[in-house]
């Protein structure tokens, strides 16, 4: 947490400006879906805008695989570290911080400030490492609900997320039906397909077979399974982009203009993937990556209802906006339509936009006017007192 008054930094219009992270500590044990229990934990979070007198304007932003509580704005002295959904969240933006009090939280098991595998286990005095339990979407929602209690938020005006974040928004409507008035479920799937799980498993294998992984207790050895993380990230990136977007961005362009007949970087796409992999392996915790991919694999709210998603959503009361992107092959529009159908079967309020965008799964992070237009219009109709 930054306690020093930041120097004034010029921010582009629409930015929430300089922000700082906060932490909340919890000492009531959290029972996890796996059967394990975490006795004490911390959650890192950021807020933007003002909570109104009736505490009715709070919006929770749930993050996906590699993001964090740093949703919008910049940190003092680090103007390049822009929040991951800054194009959506800010004054005058689709999720308008002039009207809404926006909360971003780093999930339990994360590596950006919340208690996770790299944190010190109070019982041993050493990093949790392999001992950190596996966490699920349901567990995250539980922890987020406790953070809401801590902040005095009884009911969210909205819960929004993309991809894995959208799964949390969906879970909120089932775990706490009366605590969420609107759920914005973007680039989602009601559960992973075998192909999705397969990609996750290859990513996990890349990490766990890295000699520097040491069964998850690499911290004691002063190393990081960099090669594994790098491969995991490269693989992930392929699934986030569409074939067309990759062709458009890189095609078969060569780094140096001609073939060299060796195994160095030749094609631009190779350079891009290596760069993304390298960058990721610098800051992301391998144990967190393993757990987040597992949380994705485990998410299947319909499983307890003979695979009937409509039954699982029977207790939901929120209004929904579901958005998908035509070029997203990781979580295709058909997956979002499964969610829409289950909501319609329950006669719940839902609008569904299928955005014809070329960027693939990553489109939910892009500034597409049709996409942002629908999200903006939806938020404008959410009453705040």
């Amino acid at each position, binding site marked *: 947490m930054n306690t020093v008054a930041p120097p004034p930094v010029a921010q582009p219009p629409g930015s929430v400006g300089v922000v700082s992270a906060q932490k909340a500590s919890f000492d009531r044990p959290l029972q996890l879906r796996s059967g394990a229990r975490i006795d004490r934990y911390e959650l890192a979070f950021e807020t933007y805008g003002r909570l109104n007198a009736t505490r009715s304007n709070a919006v929770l932003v749930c993050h996906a695989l590699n993001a964090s509580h740093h949703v919008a704005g910049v940190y003092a002295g680090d103007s390049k570290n822009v929040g991951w959904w800054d194009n959506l969240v800010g004054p005058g933006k689709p999720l308008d911080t002039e009207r809404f009090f926006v909360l971003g939280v780093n999930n339990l098991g994360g590596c950006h400030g919340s208690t996770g595998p790299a944190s010190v286990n109070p019982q041993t005095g050493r990093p949790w490492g392999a001992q950190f339990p596996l966490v699920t979407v349901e567990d995250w929602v539980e922890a987020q609900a406790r953070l809401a209690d801590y902040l005095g938020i009884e009911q969210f005006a909205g819960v929004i997320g993309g991809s894995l974040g959208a799964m949390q928004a969906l879970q909120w409507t089932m775990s706490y039906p009366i605590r969420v008035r609107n759920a914005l479920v973007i680039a989602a799937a009601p559960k992973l397909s075998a192909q999705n799980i397969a990609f996750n498993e290859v990513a996990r294998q890349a990490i766990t077979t890295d000699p520097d992984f040491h069964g998850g207790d690499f911290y004691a050895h002063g190393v990081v399974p960099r090669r594994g993380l790098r491969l995991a990230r490269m693989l992930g990136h392929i699934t986030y982009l569409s074939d067309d977007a990759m062709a458009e961005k890189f095609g078969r362009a060569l780094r140096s203009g001609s073939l060299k007949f060796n195994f160095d970087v030749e094609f631009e796409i190779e350079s891009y993937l290596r760069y993304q992999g390298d960058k990721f392996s610098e800051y992301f915790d391998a144990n967190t990556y393993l757990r987040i991919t597992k949380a994705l694999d485990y998410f299947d709210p319909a499983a307890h209802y003979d695979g009937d998603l409509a039954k699982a959503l029977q207790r939901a009361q929120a209004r929904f*906006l579901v958005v998908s992107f035509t070029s997203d092959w990781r979580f295709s529009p058909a997956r979002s*339509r499964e969610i*829409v*159908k289950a909501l*319609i*079967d329950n*006669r719940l*309020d*839902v*609008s*569904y*936009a*299928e955005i*014809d965008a070329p960027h693939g799964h990553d489109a939910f992070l892009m500034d597409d006017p*049709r996409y942002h*237009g*629908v999200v903006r*219009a*939806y938020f*404008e*109709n959410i009453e705040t007192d």
Partner: protein
Amino acid sequence: MPVDQASSGRLARRRDFDAIAEWVRPNAHVLDLGCGDGALLRFLRDRRSATGYGVEIDDARLLASVRNGVNVIQSDLESGLSEFESDSFDYVILSQTLQAVRHTERILREMLRVGREGIVSFPNFGYWRHRLQVLGGNMPVSSNLPYQWYNTPNVHLFTIADFESFCREHGIRILQRAVMDEDGRPVAVWTNLLGALAVYRLDLNRS
């Protein structure tokens, strides 16, 4: 006859709204196919406490529906209504949309599968003004057909007589009918000649 396309399009829609609202039971669950900016759904919500959804394919109209605060599902009517269970709506509505749908038989079959009843409104191509324009050598343009031949979204133009024989041939029962002139006044005689707009309440003859 000079026609202000934008305003007349809106007015033309309004004319069938009243007839539709009169037929729709309070608290009914409705599906509006080709819902445009969601005005009809809003009207039915305000007048009849109706719930339900619109279906719209166009990005701009979808956005307008979201702005209007109605539920709208982006989907192509031509590919069917697989998102919707059989008999899951009290009414499925095609308000001045049928003439713009390519697969007429399929959409009407789907409509009466998903809805216990269907409500269809359409501009009557047999309206005397339209006939005069065709006799004069031009495709008709009027407040109910506000497009030129080259920019019309309409792919099937038909008359009241055509629609009623279609219903007979396809086992569709006509439960109620309202025919009106260009000013929205009811037309009781020579409907196929004097009617500019027709509205029907239908169900499937399941016997």
